[in-house]
């Protein structure tokens, strides 16, 4: 079998089957779940490489029709569900695959170890792959719910009472968000009669022979847009719909925090980008410019509010969680620019090629999605092992860690600076393209917000770095032992696991190395961009 369209199925099905296997293996032998997960994720990695090769170097966009019902009829509407792998979705698939393996290495020693945990873990991996690869809106809802369910159980896997409360809160808010998304999908379905993304886009544009005109102005379609946007903004934790996120991040077990902070909101934001760019397309926003303005405005508020809340936090995990609110605001803002009517025609000559502001925004979205996933995953991994071995959880307790945990402190420093957007890191690259888009489109308030948020990010990052390297411990913490809950107080220092250190270092190297990959990513995304803006 050399048909690369089979790879997407494998990517979704393998972890889901392995999730069942992991539970079954638990009956035979305790703690065998890790091996099952490792085997499944290695298969995933192979499939991922196959898909990358096919999409970026081969034929490009791949479509697999599940059940091979085909597209009968003169207008060629899809009957079954389609899986679609294009340049944007494969980028997310690569991130999911890499982060999954990395978190597995951390959880070998650090995380919850039961087979049920790995079962939920694999289910989550399968769900994330599904959201990235599906070409059908209702299917996307189902995968979002699989992601949601697996995340709720993983957050609660920490056995502490606090995590159960956080998981329930997440469940209530997250499910409401997903249900709102489903209402929106239902409205679009009523307006067009199809759920396939490509067909929906064609119907909305009024392309099929039996449609008289474009449906962009239709009340049902606009209402559907509203519901879908609200639902996905809940899932990507945009202010003021973010309240589930800091609790979930700080109450979950460390390895779980790494996984969901790197991927759960990322995939929701990807889903938002996918629906806006592929289903609604910039043409919808030309008819309803206020919709694009609304997205950009909400996102701007989130950027500022997230940063301000992050500055106010004492606990490092919560600080990073609020920083995610701000960073996802940036990503959603980039999507808002990409579809903004003002950006579509605004050309900017850059590096010898003239691109429109909207194209820059799409590139920025893709880079920042992947970059932020890596940065946040690496940061939470470092913060998690520091909490375990040094007992430091608040910013104040980080005093002098630069001497006691030099490798992890250095990693935190580099990753945190990447979060601010210091070159040459991927954080800079993403922000640069997004800011370029904002300036090119003439969205000055947003450009100001982006630069202001950089300063705010620097405020809380600098506070952490100052503690790490320049504050003597005796000054900062007269009675640290009482505060750390006994992990380090037992006398014997716990050394960090090799797996965790390797993952943290690799994430740091990746974040810096990707900072030089701007041209490569841009070229890889070009076919996708052409499809969005020239259709």
């Amino acid at each position, binding site marked *: 079998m050399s048909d690369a369209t089979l790879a997407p199925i494998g990517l979704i099905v393998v972890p889901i089957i392995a999730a069942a296997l992991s539970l079954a293996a638990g009956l035979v032998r305790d703690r065998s779940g890790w091996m099952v997960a490792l085997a499944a994720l290695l298969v995933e990695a192979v499939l991922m490489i196959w898909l990358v090769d096919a999409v970026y170097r081969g034929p490009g966009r791949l479509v697999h029709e599940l059940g091979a019902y085909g597209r009968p009829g003169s207008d060629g509407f899809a009957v079954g569900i389609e899986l679609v792998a294009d340049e944007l979705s494969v980028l997310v698939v690569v991130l999911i695959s890499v982060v999954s393996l990395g978190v597995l290495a951390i959880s070998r020693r650090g995380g919850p170890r039961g087979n049920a945990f790995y079962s939920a873990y694999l289910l989550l991996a399968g769900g994330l792959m599904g959201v990235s690869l599906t070409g059908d809106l209702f299917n996307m809802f189902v995968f979002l719910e699989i992601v949601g369910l697996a995340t709720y159980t993983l957050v609660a896997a920490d056995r502490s009472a606090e995590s159960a409360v956080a*998981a329930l809160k997440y469940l209530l808010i997250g499910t409401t968000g997903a249900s709102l998304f489903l209402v929106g999908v239902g409205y679009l*379905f009523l307006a067009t009669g199809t759920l396939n993304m490509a067909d929906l886009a064609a119907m909305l544009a009024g392309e099929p022979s039996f449609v008289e005109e474009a449906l962009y102005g239709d009340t049902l379609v606009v209402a559907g847009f509203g519901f879908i946007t609200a639902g996905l903004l809940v899932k990507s934790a945009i202010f003021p719909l973010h309240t589930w996120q800091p609790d979930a991040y700080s109450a979950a077990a460390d390895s779980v925090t790494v996984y969901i902070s790197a991927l759960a909101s990322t995939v929701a934001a990807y889903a938002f980008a996918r629906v806006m760019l592929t289903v609604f397309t910039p043409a919808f926003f030309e008819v309803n410019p206020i919709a694009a303005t609304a997205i950009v405005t909400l996102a701007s508020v989130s950027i500022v509010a997230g940063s301000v809340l992050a500055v106010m936090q004492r606990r490092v995990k919560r600080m990073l969680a609020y920083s995610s609110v701000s960073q996802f605001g940036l990503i959603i803002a980039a999507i808002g620019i990409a579809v903004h009517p003002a950006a579509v025609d605004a050309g900017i000559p850059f590096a010898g090629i003239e691109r429109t502001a909207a194209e820059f925004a799409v590139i920025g979205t893709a880079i920042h999605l992947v970059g932020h996933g890596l940065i946040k995953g690496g940061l939470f991994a470092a913060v998690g092992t520091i909490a375990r071995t040094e007992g430091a959880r608040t910013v104040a307790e980080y005093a002098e860690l630069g001497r006691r945990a030099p490798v992890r402190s250095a990693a935190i420093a580099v990753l945190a600076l990447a979060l601010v957007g210091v070159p040459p890191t991927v954080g800079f690259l993403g922000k640069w393209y997004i800011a370029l888009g904002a300036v090119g489109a003439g969205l000055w308030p947003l450009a100001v917000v982006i630069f202001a948020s950089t300063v705010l990010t620097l405020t809380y990052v600098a506070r952490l770095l100052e503690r790490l390297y320049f504050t003597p411990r005796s000054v900062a913490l007269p009675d640290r032992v009482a505060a750390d809950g006994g992990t380090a107080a037992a006398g014997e220092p716990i050394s960090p696991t090799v797996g965790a250190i390797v993952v943290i270092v690799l994430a740091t190297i990746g974040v810096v190395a990707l900072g030089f990959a701007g041209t490569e990513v841009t070229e890889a995304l070009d076919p996708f961009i052409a499809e969005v803006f020239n259709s």
Partner: protein
Amino acid sequence: MNVVVDLLTTQYTYALFALLMGIGLYMMVASENLVKKVIGLNVFQTALFLFFVSSAYVVGGSAPIVPSGASGRFVSPLPQVIVLTAIVVGVALTAVALSLIVRIYGEYGTLREEALREVRADE
């Protein structure tokens, strides 16, 4: 006036959908009790099922199980499949939510949000 009456007599399921959705959301926000919040979530999701099923309805249509060669009016099968899937998702969510509530009750001995907040603030 006639328009409203028309709408209520022919499209009342849609009005009911909006009403149930509002009630469900309000329950989730306003109720102090965690179990009632989950019930609110269920009401909200049930509203969605009603919405999809009524969108499939055809006057005089029968269930979309078509033996070969049969003809006649059938209701649209796709929304029905969607509802089936959504019900399964809803059941799974309710199960997870209730199991979390059992754990919370075991730890804190309360189901009321306010009391829970006080207990947690004390710790």
